[in-house]
């Protein structure tokens, strides 16, 4: 296996990548994110991307990354186009970090439109 960022940092970078995709409003917040938003901790996490909408794994110890993305898309952009762009951005990012590895399997689910 090629060395790369730690899993936590990798998840965060993927989240940041997806959030930069045109048409993505935000990643689906998890329960912790919903509760945290009401607490005065925004300063603490300002430089960290919320990662609740990203799940990263290597099932069965395989060499292939499996990435699940749950995102909320902007209403004025076609949901399919947003999902495709998000998938492509993740694939390209992982390829840039692990150029020698097999391409990642990326699943994208649109959980909302705003």
């Amino acid at each position: 296996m090629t060395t790369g960022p730690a899993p936590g940092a990798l998840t965060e970078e993927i989240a940041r990548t997806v959030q930069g995709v045109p048409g993505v409003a935000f990643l689906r917040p998890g329960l912790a994110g919903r509760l945290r938003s009401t607490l005065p901790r925004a300063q603490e996490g300002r430089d960290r991307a919320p990662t609740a909408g990203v799940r990263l794994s290597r099932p069965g110890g395989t060499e292939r990354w499996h990435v699940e993305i749950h995102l909320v898309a902007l209403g004025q952009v076609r949901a399919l186009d947003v999902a495709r762009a998000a998938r492509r951005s993740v694939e390209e990012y992982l390829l840039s970090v692990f150029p020698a590895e097999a391409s990642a399997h990326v699943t994208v689910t649109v959980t909302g439109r705003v």
Partner: protein
Amino acid sequence: MTAHTDPSDAHSGSPHTDDTHTGDVHDDERLPCGRLLSQVWDDWERGPADTADPHLRTCPHCRRSVRGLDELESAVRDLRDETTDTSAYDTTSLTQRVMDVVRLELRPGRPLSLGEPAEDLWIMESVAARTLRAAAESVSGVRAGSCRLLPLDISDGTGGPVVEVSLALHAPARVPLPELADQVRGRVREAADRELGLAIGAVDIRVTDLIDTTADSQEGETR
């Protein structure tokens, strides 16, 4: 409130010897005319002061003290009327929006395939249904109800429609329903393709009610 006694009897004697009204004298205000404020107010509440007691009609102190009470009652009455009016406000829109959020959180539905089956891209049923309902309601006078998206068998991987749509709606009365249904189908298909990228098959429409649009026509046209 105590039982009423004849005002002329109650106030005819010296105020200082009137035992009826001196029980709480330390907490009560005595007007310059000698009468207790509480008794003046009590008399005012019981009926028209000018007919019950000549003193209340002529005494400037008593008149001033009940004028404030009168103003207070008018203000309360206005407020009560205003509160009654607000019950007529249309809260349907707000309720609908709140329930949409709650429904989305609690019952997101199943994931539906977006694009080609092999792409592994999905959209939650509730999200797609909301878009399709809005498309149906873009037809004047139509109110969309339940919208179910029923997955089709896509195991052969040949592409094509992935869901069928079952949509209930309230239709405007005095409009030909077949034409209306075709119009709704067109809007739903267009939204599924243009806004979602979802390949839909049949669009089954059930008209569950007819609405008299004479009162709603303006609202329908502005949607």
